[in-house]
């Protein structure tokens, strides 16, 4: 059971990284970014390709993927989203379109055939990326076997969550981001450059998605469609936790990740998924603005 909870915790951690970015960008900018999952996927490909072409291991791939996804997110904000602020349906459709374009570009450029690899039944994906050997040796705590890579995922998530908390609550930029989340017009009237701060926020949230992608690539097959399902789970966390709430996002990802992990092992994946959706619906009915929400927008 302890091992199951530990696996659930590591899944929750990746979910948290994905949801943090979504929560911040939706909270600060009111943008439902349907391409967020593709930024996860881009991070995963960055990890794999940096290993193949640059011989970088996972530790170096993490910051590289953060930068690649952050720059891509910045470009997305500058070129598409900036022109559609305040038009929530338009941003949703536009980012959905961007998601499809990114998926197809990756499929065209980096399908397995690109590498001359043809594996029957595997589809157009890559195998998961190489994980350094020191992260693959399991260890034991009180007789319970613990997978080192899963621990690494939790550690990276913990560090990035603390960094996010520090940025949001202990820096001038964080005050500006939170002010924009609460009231963008008053923030602007107080001299805050809403567009510049929003661009930074979007890039940071995108960067977190990229890191989540690399961590996923350590144990999942990397393929163009891998982001689509993660973004749905990310939105579930945002809805349950409360938009823009760091604490809510952390608790909701832990709760939903654990429910999914535990019930998947006790029953099966499909039933576990149904139970997660049931819990989400119950929470929305009980608290429509999420577990930890503030008045905004």
């Amino acid at each position, binding site marked *: 059971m302890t091992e199951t909870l530990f696996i659930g915790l590591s899944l929750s951690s990746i979910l948290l990284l994905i949801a943090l970015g979504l929560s911040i960008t939706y909270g600060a900018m009111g943008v439902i970014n349907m391409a967020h999952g593709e930024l996860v996927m881009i991070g995963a490909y960055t990890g794999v390709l940096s290993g193949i072409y640059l011989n970088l291991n996972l530790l170096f791939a993490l910051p590289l993927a953060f930068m690649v996804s952050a720059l891509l997110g910045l470009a997305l904000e500058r070129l598409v989203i900036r022109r559609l602020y305040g038009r929530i349906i338009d941003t949703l459709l536009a980012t959905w379109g961007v998601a499809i374009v990114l998926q197809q570009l990756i499929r065209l450029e980096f399908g397995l055939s690109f590498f001359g690899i043809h594996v029957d039944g595997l589809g157009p994906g890559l195998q998961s990326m190489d994980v350094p050997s020191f992260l693959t040796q399991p260890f034991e705590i009180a007789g319970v076997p613990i997978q080192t890579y899963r621990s690494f995922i939790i550690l990276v998530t913990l560090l990035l969550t603390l960094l996010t908390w520090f940025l949001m609550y202990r820096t001038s930029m964080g005050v*500006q981001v939170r002010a924009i989340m*609460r009231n963008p017009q*008053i923030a*602007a*009237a107080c*001299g*805050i450059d*809403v567009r510049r701060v929003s661009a930074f926020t979007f890039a940071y949230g995108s960067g977190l998605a990229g890191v989540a992608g690399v961590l996923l690539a350590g144990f999942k097959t990397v393929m163009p469609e891998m982001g689509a399902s993660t973004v749905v789970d990310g939105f579930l966390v945002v809805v349950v936790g409360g938009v823009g709430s760091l604490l809510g996002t952390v608790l909701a990802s832990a709760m939903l990740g654990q429910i999914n992990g535990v019930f998947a092992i006790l029953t099966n994946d499909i039933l576990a998924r149904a139970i997660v959706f049931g819990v989400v619906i119950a929470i929305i009915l009980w608290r429509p603005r999420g577990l930890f929400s503030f008045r905004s927008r």
Partner: protein
Amino acid sequence: MLSLSNVDSFYGRSQALHDMTVAAPEGAILGILGRNGVGKTTLLRTILGLTDRSEGQITLGDKPIARLATHERARAGIAYVPQGRMIIPDFSIRENILMGGFAAGGTRRIPDIVPELFPYLIENLDRPGGVLSGGQQQQLAIARALACKPRVLLMDEPTEGIQPNIVAQIEDIIIRLNSEFGLTILLVEQNVHFVRRAAKAFAMIEHGTAVESGAIETLTDEMVNKHMAI
């Protein structure tokens, strides 16, 4: 100091200001009067660039500001005390005040004028803004605007919804901000008595345009009855 010349302003396709021309003299309070819904708040929001679109000239001193973004207008020296205060309830009093500092070069220092005018706020800097009473929240909104180190203060019905014994305090503070600290103030008010006491000039708004304006001494009861009586 601050002047609007032939300004039109829009929310979507709906035009809210028509050919608006008003000027706030330097170091004076300009009282903006009119019934509800005639465009007084829109006038202030237009000055800050908070409507969807506007046309015409807006100048601060000699500087045209109509093409500037809202945060640039704030940094140029325009601060806003909005209707309903709009403080951020879960921010501490300190954070609420320091929000204004971003218009003054991002300073993290509360200006000296704030403890002088609002000692209660300074004694409770770490409390959330949301626990304050209406009058205290109004003080906080004014303190936030002062942290912008403004040349011009836009105040939208600052005594609205505040218990009567606090209203007089707020009124006195507004008069002090002008007389002691030399701030130019555009004051949207329904309270004609207070406007007569505080302002040097007035503009009467109707249907999104200034139909009467001039020195406060020229504001007659007839004008008030004609343009403000329900």
